[in-house]
């Protein structure tokens, strides 16, 4: 029996290529090295967080609080730095906050048996409030010059945030595909009880993945501060939607247990190319929202249709 190539896996890649070809034709500026670096830099924040989100969704959960963690982390780091704290310590403080938020999410879901969507929805709203409280509702300035390298610097041709994103993707790929922890993430998402009965500490896995996502979001917030040279209390607002969209576009099943980092990379790039291309075409921002939403629905719809088709062929 020969293993058949499952073309549906490549549908999303085909969509990305189609988008690139389309924008290359209709605009002069899309396919230039400067613009490509732009696209990558724009997706760096979402890209990093999408790795953590992939872990979370693979276990059957979801984390709506990422955007707000970005905000809290940004204003915290900026406020501390503005007050004269050493940037390294300020960043560390922000990362600890992300870690703690992850643990709180984990505790609500594990110990109180709350639905991840509800627990993190509450955290999302509350933490956005915290971001505004910390900053007094205004952007926080006074970021030291030395700190700007993180968000604005280059290493050879590559912007630093892009390099960080690539490292996160590589680490995410290795952890998910090559380690015991990665295997238990897939197992827990697909069948929690069978995992528990195989000796997996399901609760521990959940604490870990929400903590990872919290730390990644905090790191994203820090990079954002460096990039815009200020701590914005609104930083990361509604990013959770882009992040989840990228994961789902990339083929991560909302039911958990199925999905690949490689797919998520493609999903992130689609979001980046689409946004960038529409900006180059001067598409009205309101229309951009419509298109992004439509893309998500279309992607899931195509997936569902292909599943139905496959199920029909397979039933014996």
């Amino acid at each position: 029996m020969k293993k058949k190539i499952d073309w549906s896996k490549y549908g999303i890649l085909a969509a990305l290529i189609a988008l690139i070809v389309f924008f290359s034709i209709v605009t002069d500026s899309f396919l230039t090295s400067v613009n490509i670096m732009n696209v990558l830099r724009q997706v760096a924040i979402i890209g990093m967080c999408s790795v953590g989100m992939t872990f979370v969704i693979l276990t059957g959960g979801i984390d709506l609080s990422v955007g707000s963690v970005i905000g809290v982390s940004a204003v915290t780091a900026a406020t501390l730095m503005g007050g004269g704290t050493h940037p390294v310590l300020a960043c560390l403080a922000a990362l600890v906050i992300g870690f703690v938020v992850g643990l709180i999410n984990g505790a609500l879901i594990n110990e109180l048996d709350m639905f991840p969507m509800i627990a993190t929805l509450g955290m999302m709203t509350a933490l956005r409030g915290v971001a505004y409280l910390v900053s007094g509702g205004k952007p926080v300035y006074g970021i030291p010059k030395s700190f700007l390298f993180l968000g604005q610097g280059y290493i050879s041709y590559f912007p630093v945030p892009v390099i960080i994103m690539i490292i996160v993707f590589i680490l995410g790929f290795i952890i998910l595909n090559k380690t015991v922890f990665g295997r238990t993430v897939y197992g827990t998402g697909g069948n929690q009880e069978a995992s528990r009965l195989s000796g997996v500490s399901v609760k521990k896995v959940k604490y870990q993945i929400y903590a990872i996502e919290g730390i990644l979001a905090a790191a994203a917030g820090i990079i954002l501060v460096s990039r815009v040279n200020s701590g914005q209390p609104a930083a990361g607002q509604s990013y959770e939607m882009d992040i989840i969209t990228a994961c789902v576009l990339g083929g991560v099943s909302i039911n958990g247990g199925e999905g690949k980092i490689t797919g998520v990379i493609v999903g992130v790039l689609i979001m980046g190319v689409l946004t960038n291309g529409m900006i180059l075409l001067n598409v009205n921002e309101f229309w951009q929202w419509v298109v992004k939403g439509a893309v998500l629905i279309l992607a899931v719809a195509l997936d569902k249709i292909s599943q139905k088709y496959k199920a029909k062929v397979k039933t014996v």
Partner: protein
Amino acid sequence: MNSTVLELKNIRKLYPGVVALDGVSMSFKKGEVHAIVGENGAGKSTFIKSITGAIEPTEGEIIFKGEFIAHNNPAKSLEMGICAVYQEFNLIPYLNVAENIFYGRYKTKGIFVDYESMYKETKEILDDLGVKIDPRTLVKDLTVGYQQIIEIAKSISRRAKVIIMDEPSAPLTNSELIYLFKIVAKLKERGCAIIYISHRLEEIFEICDKVTVFRDGKYIQTLSVAETNKEELITLMVNRDLGEQFPPKQLVKKDKVLEVKGLNTDVIKDIHFEAYEGEILGFAGLVGAGRTEIARAVFGADKINGGEILLNGKRLNIHSPKDAIASGIGLIPEDRKQHGALLHMSIQENTTYAHLSNFANKFGMIDFKKEIKAVNEYKEALKIKTPFISQKVKNLSGGNQQKVVLAKWLITDCKVLIFDEPTRGIDVGAKQEIYQLMIELAKQGKVIIMISSEMPELLGMSDRIIVMHEGRITGELYREDATQEKILSMASGGQEEVK
């Protein structure tokens, strides 16, 4: 008089690369209970689905009451009076009995639902079946056995001419089973044609008139139940002589390995027992007697309120399955699909799942070469039928899925293995292999604890049988003294202590 209700002529169903049904011709008569048997994958389900219109056969004719049915579909076959009672019920838990029976065709008075006449008619049907259930009871509050009766009542209210029962006995307790048989007899009297599918051959001899054997998508033979026996059916099903159904085994009583003292949970009370090296210890009892709960308590899956578990004389501190596995205890759960296998993952991933750290370095990086080698060894040893170990477990047959779950525990090298209903829903050939394997493990000196609701399996395999009733141990029997009657009497609460 021609009493044939349903006739099928040369039904073929092709899937890409697979012939699921290969030219099956059969007929079903009024007032006859007709069993269909065959191993998993023999084509029984495809055949049933062709009759109910769930799938459309590639070729062939369906003739119902002398009329040729073109383009069958589920709504059409229901309309004609062909009803199926599946293993997974199609009931809605938060609706009551009458609402479920009339679901989709509520009786109405103007724009309002006419509950009065629905309740009345439901009561008539249930009374007629000799069941005392209030039509206003919510389905979720009924036992599985009663839920099945509601499914049957639904068919009756649709004036079914043909009722298909797919493994109806699988979820039932022994007393519920007797009830089911009574109802089947009643339906037969009324002239229903009943198509009865079951893995339990004993039942067929109890209630069926005819039995048809399927194998590899082909119709093999129809026999009159009165003129055949179990051995003949098995031979026809597997097309090979299975020899002795239970391999012989001799117990040499060795050291005490497992000792359970005064174990208590919310369900089980004051459980004491011990198990010896090389022993197969059976647990008998009705569904709900607490056998699974003992297994889960020993394995750390449920919270215990008191008691001790000792392994080789050492007291164990088990708070989770993880602790139990570390101590050398494994559990093959009753519900293979929900608790045993990770269906969405591959054979490879399943096999090493409980023991993965053994295939990884100290950073948690998996050594794939080592893993694949080990998995292939177990695949060969257990004869798991698959072209490649990256195959997802959900694509395997029940017997092969169970073997993968077994492989997971064998690879962890547990000292004590608890099998909870190890052969449920598995075909005869695979059953045989699993029995063989359990005996092999016992010979290696492992302790095998087997919970089973199948009497022949318990009697044939166990060196010793512990019988339970309502959360307590009510008796213990050695192989040579054990009989079905003694077990049943203890399982129904009769205090017949044989020590």
